[in-house]
């Protein structure tokens, strides 16, 4: 009964690593799960198939490479996302962006270039092309990409 919400919370936290407010990391970060950065990072961040979120207190002087990058804090460095870059209102980004899609809120400070690169369409597998695109939004909580590891 009451154990259901706890299980959901546990599953979420297990799939997300967090660099806390009071933490500073100098070097290379490579992760196979989602990453929240609330502290300071200098170097590189790579999370190829996952999402990297730079929190409001996050300060990153690093290149960031991920499936999806969400920025609430400050980033100085190039950002590369396979899927989407999301720059929120209070964010400050100085660097070049390469991504397939971008969302930027009014008020965000951005200096750099934006290069939109649409992912190359995968060769169609006979018969199964239409159904996965419809099925994917129906189960967003399943976090399917993580299970590939």
């Amino acid at each position, binding site marked *: 009964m009451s154990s259901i919400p706890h299980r959901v919370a546990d599953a979420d936290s297990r799939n997300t690593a967090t660099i806390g407010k009071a933490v500073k990391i100098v070097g290379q970060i490579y992760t196979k799960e989602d990453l929240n950065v609330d502290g300071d990072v200098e170097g590189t961040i790579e999370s190829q198939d996952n999402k990297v979120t730079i929190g409001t207190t996050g300060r990153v002087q690093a290149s960031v490479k991920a499936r999806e990058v969400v920025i609430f804090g400050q980033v100085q460095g190039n950002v590369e996302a396979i899927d989407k870059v999301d720059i929120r209102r209070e964010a400050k980004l100085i660097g070049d962006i390469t991504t397939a899609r*971008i969302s930027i809120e009014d008020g965000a*400070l*951005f200096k750099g*270039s*934006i*290069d939109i690169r649409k992912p190359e369409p995968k060769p169609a597998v006979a018969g199964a092309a239409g159904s996965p695109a419809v099925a994917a939004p129906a189960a967003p909580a399943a976090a399917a990409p993580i299970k590939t590891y």
Partner: protein
Amino acid sequence: MQLQEKFRSIFHRGSETPAPARASSHAGSSHASPAHSGPNLSFLKSTRKELQTTRPSRGLEQFFFNLQGQVGLSILDLAGASQQNIDFLTNLGHKVYSANVAYSMDECFGTDPSGQMNPGRIDYFLKSIFDYPPETFDGILMWDSMQFMGPALLNATVERLTDIMRPRSYLLAFFTVNDKVQEVPAFNFRIQDSKTLLVTERGLKPTGHVVNNRSLEKLFGKCESVKFFLSRENLREVIVRR
């Protein structure tokens, strides 16, 4: 279960596109808006909306006419990053460079106009916003920022701009026609389509330099051509071909 799904769909829509969701929330979900922000913020937003207008722009039309049929160009947009401008330019297949010249001017010179004569500050300003290799851009959207620059800053900026523009590239800039006023409204410019702008007033700012057609031709003397369009809003829209 059904109620949960309804909530999920409402919140999901809100996070994807905040503005339309706010507009459509009048329909029924009055309890959803307090969760986003306090009542004061929505009041401020509603007053800000009144200052927004759309208007046609011959200068913008000419700018995109000159670039039509080409893709993969490098366009520098100095209005600050905005979703509309980025979407419009990237949908045309161009690479967008973004910077906020108004923010950088405030940061470097503050409100004191004499700061715009300080060579050290001018140098810092140019390095902070135009630190690109020579002949990088095929188009520069300067908007109205040049009319707030004093003569020294304006000349230095134009010199730097001609350096980072490719030969036969274009620059769009707006100047007020009214030379009797000391302050003119500053605007944010959002591209609606190739000939229409959504303009939002940012308040009044002192004009740094009174320009007319002849002084503009002199200012862009190194460039191949300067073309003027007079708009109904007392604006002189200028297209410069490097």
